[in-house]
């Protein structure tokens, strides 16, 4: 099996141990880019989603907007952004945020709307203000759903950030793209494998967070009933 040999070649090369092409450096770059994109996406989508979910207004606009955003090709946006603004991190952040924001927005709206109406009525009935209901009732209830939206977004961002290397930016895509350009198949394969590992690790991390974020009462309920609810 020459796959093992390829991977061995890739991981043991001196260039992968230190310097700009070192694995630790590329992984850090990749995570920094992805994390930044996810942060901006959440900053944009979570407050908007809370507002729309709570008031129930603008849901149609959300559907239309997320549909359009899903249709935008990342590779096209990043090449255009580089031609217009030069090789900067912003060039890849814009398309990545456009990719990450829709699932977070949809999940936040769904999460807030999914709060039991009786619960909301009860909270209002005992004298909580709208703001308090949103922060103390709807948000904790929506948190697992919001986190699963963030998980979908994070995985897509980590997978897609690979494309950044095509326009000369860093990250794990460097191995994949440079490997393709120089017919260095071990590098391409190794880079691809690292991206997959990062994506899987992110999924596991979010799975843990979602478990933890579930309100204690709900967790007990779930444990009692059949755990059939799909979180995404």
């Amino acid at each position: 099996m020459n796959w093992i040999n390829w991977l061995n070649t890739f991981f043991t090369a001196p260039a992968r141990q230190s310097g700009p092409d070192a694995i630790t450096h590329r992984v850090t770059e990749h995570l920094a880019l992805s994390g930044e994109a996810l942060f901006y996406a959440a900053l944009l989508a979570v407050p908007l989603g809370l507002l729309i979910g709570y008031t129930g207004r603008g849901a149609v606009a959300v559907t239309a907007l997320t549909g359009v955003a899903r249709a935008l090709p990342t590779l096209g946006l990043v090449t255009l952004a580089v031609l217009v603004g030069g090789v900067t991190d912003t060039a890849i952040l814009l398309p990545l945020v456009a990719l990450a924001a829709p699932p977070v927005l949809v999940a936040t709206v769904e999460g807030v709307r999914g709060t039991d109406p009786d619960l909301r009525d009860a909270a209002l009935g005992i004298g909580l203000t709208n703001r308090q209901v949103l922060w103390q009732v709807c948000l904790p209830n929506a948190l697992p759903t919001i986190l699963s939206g963030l998980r979908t977004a994070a995985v897509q961002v980590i997978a897609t950030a690979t494309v950044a290397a095509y326009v000369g930016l860093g990250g794990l895509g460097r191995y994949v793209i440079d490997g393709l350009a120089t017919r260095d198949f071990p590098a391409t394969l190794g880079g691809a494998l690292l991206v997959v590992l990062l994506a899987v690790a992110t999924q596991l991390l979010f799975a843990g967070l979602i478990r933890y974020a579930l309100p204690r009462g709900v967790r007990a309920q779930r444990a009692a009933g059949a755990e059939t609810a799909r979180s995404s």
Partner: protein
Amino acid sequence: MDGEPLVRWYWIGDHLAYLRDLTLDHAVIALVPVLIALLIAVPLGLACARFPRLYQPLSAVFNVVYALPSLAVFVVLIPYTGLATRATVMVPLTFYALAVLLPTTVDGLRSVPDSVRQAATAMGYGPWHRLSAVELPAAVPYLVSGLRVAAVSSISLAAVGALIGRGGLGYLFIDGFQRTFPTPIVAGIVLVAALALVTDLLLILARRLLAPWAVRPEAAR
């Protein structure tokens, strides 16, 4: 890119036939996998709805599949299906579409209340008749909303295939980038988005025709 406008209209005028061919190629590369995935998802979904024990591991597997970066999968397939071939791009796209369609199919089939199923049986429907007359029609709205997500994602993902030499409209991004010429890139973005929106509208229309009673269950992803 000093002084170069975003769009030079004459280039588009000169390349209409070329753009049309790329759009058709893109549609085939992106949408045939979705159709194949649909043909697999329905029987597989039926099996999963019958045997829930099968569904748990399958859905876990497809959750991981969904996380695989498309470019990485294309690259890994090159030794088997060849560089710059349609198959190299279409095989992974089929799996991505399946990852979206399988859960929606299962949700759709499970959406039939037990009372309805029992009523059908009481009226003398056999298992196959019940399936074709009750359960599958009930799943149609779910299937269509899954298809919408799968088709639109597939269309935008297919463009990445250009990096390994076969991405339909994605080629315009490579071409424009290498020549520091934004016109093809803008044309490519607009055509990819347009193809996605037209496909989406056709699917909405299909749902109206096939399931006029449906009250729009929105897809989770």
